[in-house]
């Protein structure tokens, strides 16, 4: 049992893993911000052009959401990191992970915002337009605030999933928590660094998972 919690190995592993925490958090926060912004932008575009001559654009956005829902994030990451250089696009591991996670979350977020928007009663649009608000104003002042309420629990959950998916970046040599633990493990031939990393993930994500669960019951989306 001692081998799993060897204090010397743990002490030696800690500085690397601590620096990994910074990278994990940095990657998580930037990808989540970019993904949510992308999703909100696309859903807004799709809502505003509904019924307009630009309709095919809405179809394109829906197709984007479908493709990135069907694509395993790791496959996307590997393609971006190992195939894109052949097209002259050299991404660092961090950039590749940021783009992959942002695109995947963007697709989910678009879908979540879109579901929220379409769930707002048509009568709300009509009431707002009948009072002389422009389409944009009606969307911003009337529809979006109601839609956001519905989107908070699922969006929180997708954001947490994105945070956890930062562990995938270890595959493309980003020195985040898992990557640090794996390389220290390789040097020390001890499972202790991995367990330390596991503990770090639990400390980071268990509170978030609990919050996600609480939000689901609180907003009662079923």
């Amino acid at each position: 049992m001692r081998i799993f919690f060897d204090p010397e190995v743990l002490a030696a592993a800690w500085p690397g893993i601590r620096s990994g925490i910074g990278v994990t958090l940095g990657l998580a926060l930037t990808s989540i911000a970019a993904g949510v912004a992308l999703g909100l932008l696309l859903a807004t575009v799709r809502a505003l052009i509904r019924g307009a001559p630009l309709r095919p654009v809405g179809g394109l956005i829906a197709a984007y959401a479908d493709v990135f829902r069907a694509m395993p994030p790791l496959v996307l990451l590997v393609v971006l990191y190992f195939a894109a250089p052949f097209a002259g696009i050299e991404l660092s591991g961090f950039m590749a992970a940021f783009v992959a996670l942002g695109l995947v979350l963007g697709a989910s977020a678009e879908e979540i915002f879109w579901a929220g928007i379409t769930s707002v009663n048509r009568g709300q649009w009509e009431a707002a337009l009948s009072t002389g608000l422009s389409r944009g104003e009606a969307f911003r002042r009337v529809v979006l605030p109601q839609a956001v309420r519905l989107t908070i629990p699922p969006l929180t959950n997708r954001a947490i999933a994105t945070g956890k998916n930062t562990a995938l970046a270890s595959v493309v040599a980003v020195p985040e928590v898992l990557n640090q633990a794996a390389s220290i493990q390789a040097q020390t031939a001890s499972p202790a660094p991995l367990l330390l990393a596991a503990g770090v993930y639990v400390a980071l994500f268990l509170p978030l998972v609990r919050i996600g669960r609480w939000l689901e019951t609180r907003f009662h989306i079923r």
Partner: protein
Amino acid sequence: MSEFFQTFLNPGVMAESSGLLLRGLWVTLQACLIVVPGGLFFGAGLALAQTLAPAWGARSLSWGVDLIRAFPPLVLLVLIVHGLPFLGIEPPPLLGVGIALTINTSTYYGEILRAGILSIEPTQWEAARSTGLGTMATLRHVILPQGVRNVLPDLAGNTLEAVKLTSLASVVALPDLLRMARVAQGVHFNPSPLILAALLYLALLWPLVRLIRRLGGRAVLPA
């Protein structure tokens, strides 16, 4: 444009690596055949346990579920595949991957099935009890048939996630579709196998995404 094709969709390279990719695809399918039924089975067990347990039992189960969910699936996978050997347990790679991903995905199947059970009005339980049906018979014949139907889109959605998850197996050296594509890329020094693998994943999963849409599914599965 033709240069683009020669680089990313090179017919010669794709033909030569197709054998490798098909072997990888078969391993991916095997992993799915372990993870999806396994996840459903243990998820159903979890949902029943949470339904039947007294309040404190259900609460501790929900903490246990959340503890598992706090691990990124890749961390759980690496921990099990690289950690078990230190305990003297060395399962075959496919089984190790199967265990890790089943643990992960069964917590989601479990929560979905539990939500299905909870979606049924208490009056259905009362009607069944008033005719002398026991708890298990009520679950099996009255509650589950209705509850499962209510959460069918979510079950399909989680199955999609479980299949996507199997791509992680490549990280622990299981020769699955993604891994074989990387190998082929190395052999030919050309990314076409990787692109082909990505297209294969799409071909496999796009119909499932469309099906989920048809069922009225949400993208909002829990994390």
